[in-house]
């Protein structure tokens, strides 16, 4: 029984426009084991799991589950087969009770075909008790902490008789004690013969919960090992690749960074990060690297007045400043291109010119009214200079591609003549050509004397454009490195295990 494969995914291919997300991936899981699936951002873990749950349809390959080949591509069918996926961003209804969430779509009915509330809560409570979970079946999900919500998701999976449960980054938001409960529940599930696929960035965890590990890199299968036969260091090697791809760094392009300290954070704390120290010089590009949730965005938020600084200080041009809101930040010539272009960066229903002038509109005022001739001239100028591909500056911003939208946001801050630019994931979801253009823009901006902080999940990108890189892990700054001694492996290692080696 132990050696039988409950799941076999054979030669799975999945292509997205321009990217091979999965290439000939083999993945097999034994019945009743905890199988860990790891890989860097973009390695294809989530894509593979979405193929499994049928959220995506594979372009090639076959999926065998519990002795038969899965042909149907409906998520509901897969759930009935016994495959349950718990996504990172939990999908619970916050205003409903635990019981309702657990039996959503499968409510027990009375003889009159009405919801049998008594049975609903009894069954849920029985389920919770069988897992030794302390949770009240009739309490509202919004009253639960993150750990309890996670457990509710697990109960939801069990309620529809899942044989295989996929947990995508279950620990990323859990506290240590919550994590211990999760570990215990996973052990219980295993004893009941339920198979678990466990996805995580945190390597130590895998050694606590896992039986076997499969590593993916760049959409390809790398290796599958027993947890006892592998070390942390080997794992990092598998994840990053032994021959680290050489980064083309044109040495002649290294520009002069002046001694002027434009921005300095000293022992800065906020709700998420602690003891951040970094300085940004004129014309310098500083990178913040780390896993999602490591606190990179939160550092930018404090600089831009969105998250109050709880201790320590921010200095601009060597003078201590208090930045309470975006207006203060803008007064100090700071600009932010937020992580989410569409919901935070742009007013999509307004034309390009209006987004470009969103911050700097006041400077186009002449004689008590907005001067549209000046606006048109300047926006057309930026459209040319930044090579923004749009039929006209009157085009509604929604119709532009991601890269061009990002350029519109950049011109918004350039028009305001910002000295310090905070770029949060500036190239996320942007195609390769536009990415290059953004890198060039960053270089041009530093040539103009602007200083830039970039947050990114793509290390190669940071290695290319930054003069200094700070690595963050769990709200702490764990490593700093300057261009002269960038070491990709070291940085990756630090960001994954949380300490330098």
């Amino acid at each position, binding site marked *: 029984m132990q050696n039988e494969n409950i799941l076999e995914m054979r030669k799975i291919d999945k292509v997205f426009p321009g990217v091979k997300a999965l290439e000939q991936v083999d993945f097999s899981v034994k019945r009743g084991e905890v199988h860990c699936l790891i890989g860097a951002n973009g390695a294809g873990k989530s894509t593979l799991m979405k193929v499994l749950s049928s959220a995506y349809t594979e372009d090639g390959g076959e999926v065998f589950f519990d002795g038969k080949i899965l042909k149907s591509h409906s998520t509901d069918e897969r759930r009935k087969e016994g495959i349950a996926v718990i996504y990172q961003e939990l999908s619970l209804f916050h205003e409903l009770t635990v019981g309702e969430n657990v039996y959503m779509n499968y409510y027990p009915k009375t003889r009159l075909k009405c919801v049998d509330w008594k049975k609903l809560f009894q069954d849920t409570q029985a389920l919770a008790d069988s897992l030794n979970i302390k949770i009240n079946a009739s309490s509202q999900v919004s009253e639960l902490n993150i750990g309890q919500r996670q457990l509710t998701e697990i109960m939801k999976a069990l309620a529809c008789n899942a044989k295989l449960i996929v947990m995508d980054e279950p620990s990323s938001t859990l506290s240590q004690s919550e994590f211990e409960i999760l570990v215990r529940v996973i052990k219980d599930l295993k004893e009941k013969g339920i198979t678990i696929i466990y996805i995580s960035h945190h390597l130590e965890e895998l050694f606590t919960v896992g039986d076997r590990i499969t590593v993916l890199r760049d959409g390809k299968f790398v290796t599958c090992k027993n947890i006892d036969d592998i070390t942390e260091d080997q794992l990092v090697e598998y994840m990053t690749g032994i021959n680290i791809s050489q980064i083309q760094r044109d040495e002649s392009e290294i520009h002069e960074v002046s001694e002027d300290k434009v921005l300095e954070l000293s022992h800065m704390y906020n709700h998420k990060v602690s003891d951040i120290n970094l300085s940004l010089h004129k014309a310098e590009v500083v990178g913040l690297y780390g896993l999602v949730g490591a606190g990179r965005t939160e550092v930018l938020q404090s600089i831009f007045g969105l998250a109050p600084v709880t201790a320590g200080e921010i200095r601009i041009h060597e003078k201590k400043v208090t930045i309470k809101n975006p207006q203060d930040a803008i007064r100090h010539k700071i600009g932010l291109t937020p992580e989410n272009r569409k919901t935070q960066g742009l007013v999509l229903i307004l034309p390009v010119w209006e987004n470009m002038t969103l911050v700097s509109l006041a400077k186009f005022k002449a004689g008590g009214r*907005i001067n549209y001739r000046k606006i048109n001239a300047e926006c057309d100028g930026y459209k040319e200079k930044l090579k923004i591909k749009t039929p006209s500056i009157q085009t509604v911003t929604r119709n532009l591609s991601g890269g061009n939208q990002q350029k519109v946001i950049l011109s918004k801050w350039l028009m305001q003549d910002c000295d310090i630019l905070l770029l949060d994931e500036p190239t996320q979801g942007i195609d390769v050509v536009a990415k290059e253009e953004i890198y060039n823009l960053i270089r041009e901006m530093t040539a103009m004397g602007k200083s830039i902080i970039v947050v990114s999940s793509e290390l190669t990108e940071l290695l290319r454009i930054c003069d200094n890189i700070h690595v963050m892990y769990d709200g702490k700054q764990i490593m700093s490195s300057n261009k002269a001694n960038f070491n990709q492996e070291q940085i990756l290692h630090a960001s994954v295990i949380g300490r330098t080696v």
Partner: protein
Amino acid sequence: MKTKMNVNQIIKKYNLIFLLVVFIIISTILSPSFLTLNNFLNLLQQASIPGIVALGMTLVIILGGIDLSVGSVLAFSGMIVSMVVFRFQGSAVGILAGCLTGLVVSAIMGLVTGGLISYFKLPDFIASLAMMEIARGAALLTTSGNPVFNLGDAFHVIGGGFVFGKLAISAIFWVILTVILALVLKYSIFGRTLFAIGGNREAARLSGIKTKRNYVVTYVLCAMLSGFAGILTASWMSTGQPTAGTGYELDAIAASVIGGASLSGGVGSVTGTFGGVFLLQILTNIFNLVGLPSYYQRIAKGGIIILALLLNKFVSKSKVK
């Protein structure tokens, strides 16, 4: 170089003009007295008060909000003006003091509604619904529900007077306010920020726009326009009527939407709303001229709203394709 208009906006504008033309033609066929200068001026006069209320509503809708309290604020402001004017026996000082008090009280009500929404995060619908009840109750309370008569001839001129024969002063106010607000929306920074906030509040905030302050200012403006409409109503009827303005909020919303505003915010124009109010007024007018009972009017009004929106949808869709 003139700023080119978005194709979509042009079509939406023409769409309203198209509807207006169709209605004018139908009305002319139905009643020979429709297409006369007298009737036209009459229409302007009748539409002016709901028209001024609708202007404020449009500002709020562009911002992404809704203000249900406009009709009640109109009534309360009207009652205050009437009582002050009555107390001062219709003297010039009394009229001035009355109008100022009415506007200030309206502004305060707008301040409360806007403040509750932006600083205390109450939903627009609920906060303004509460203010709708409070202002109506306050209006009724002033005189225990009785109207105030005998406001004097001087006061009647403001909202009931005419110049050049039959051109109503209230209509002139309506046109002037529409022009001023159209210019504010186009040429002032405050005006442009309304579109930004309505289009994406978070992006506006992250661009350093004072979203909360502008939200409150807009609600104050809307309430003051309603308050001003209240003064005109009391003046026109020479009566302070605590039940005045009932149902105006829905007419104002309808007119804004017919005029191209989107209830999800970021889209709308006061000139469009002007047309929307005019269209609804033509509808009332023609039913009166033909002598059909007002019940039909309401059914037709509902139909017009649906028709106008379907036309907008149809046009936007065919454009995307």
